[in-house]
């Protein structure tokens, strides 16, 4: 499977940003949602692979099904796959942290960051902070917000 150099993560609102500029670790918190039970015993966090610019426009135009509101009002965070790979190579994360491409209806760019459910809490918390600190490339504001 081929992956582009960058990936993006939608930012629901400014509470997930620090100084309206940098991502908070909480943006990347892996959630053990009932709807995402997987055979590989991982928790997942949605991302879009930056195959082309269409990944950004699709993400930033995404609307909540229930209300029709723009979903990612605070824009999108661009992450470096190379830095993600560096994290994956760390001893304490080896065989725990990975990613995948998983298209969904209407979103060919969709994928997930994956973390094994049995990862100790302290490592989970450190990982999401590391993603926020080390893998962050830029913040793309959402111009679709009036």
């Amino acid at each position, binding site marked *: 499977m081929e992956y582009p150099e960058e990936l993006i993560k939608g930012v629901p609102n400014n*509470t997930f940003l*620090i*100084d309206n500029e*940098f991502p*908070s*670790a*909480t943006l990347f*918190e892996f*959630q*053990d949602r009932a709807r995402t039970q997987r055979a590989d015993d991982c928790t997942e966090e949605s991302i879009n692979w930056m195959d082309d610019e269409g990944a950004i426009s699709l993400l930033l135009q995404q609307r909540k099904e229930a209300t029709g509101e723009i979903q990612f009002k605070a824009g999108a965070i661009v992450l470096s796959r190379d830095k993600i790979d560096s994290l994956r190579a760390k001893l*304490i994360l080896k065989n725990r942290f990975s990613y995948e491409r998983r298209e969904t209806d209407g979103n060919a760019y969709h994928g997930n960051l994956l973390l094994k459910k049995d990862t*100790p*809490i*302290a*490592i989970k*918390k*450190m990982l999401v*902070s*590391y993603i*926020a*600190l*080390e893998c962050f490339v830029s913040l793309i504001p959402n111009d679709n917000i009036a």
Partner: protein
Amino acid sequence: MEHTRFDYDINNIKTDNKSDSESFLISVNDVVTNSTEMFANSSLYNNDIVSYFQVLPSNIDIFREIKEKISGINNGPAKENAHNFALEFQNILINLAVRNDIANKLPPISIQGLDDNSVLLEWAFKDFRIGFSFEANNDDSSWFLLTKKELKAVDVSGSLNADETKSLIVNILNFVLRNT
């Protein structure tokens, strides 16, 4: 706990371009016992030992976000542990009476209640991040300090053991003041 415990001195992680860094090294034992006397003459602290909160306007109080948001967090035991930790942190800062011009450079500590019933205090800087994660079971609570490659790409972490809280806060403050 399975995660690696890094016991080395986090104050060894520092850049080489901090001119007056050596002048404010804080001894953990000194702070715990009698900090005001020890730091009265340091260049980083107010000689008259005025309270941190008397000195600082609210817009440069590093706890301002915690004060604003903690009432809206409902993660019971984790919230209480986070609150107690913040109070201890505050007391140490009051004792140290960090100078205004230095305190002014410190970003606020953010607080978030997470869906897993934990509470995260996050102190984010350009080249490093510090996190204090409080869990429903306090034995699982932890701290970490992560740096970019500009600061040698170090990750340090450990359990949030109440007996070592003061020394942890002092060591982390030393690191922050050296690298801010």
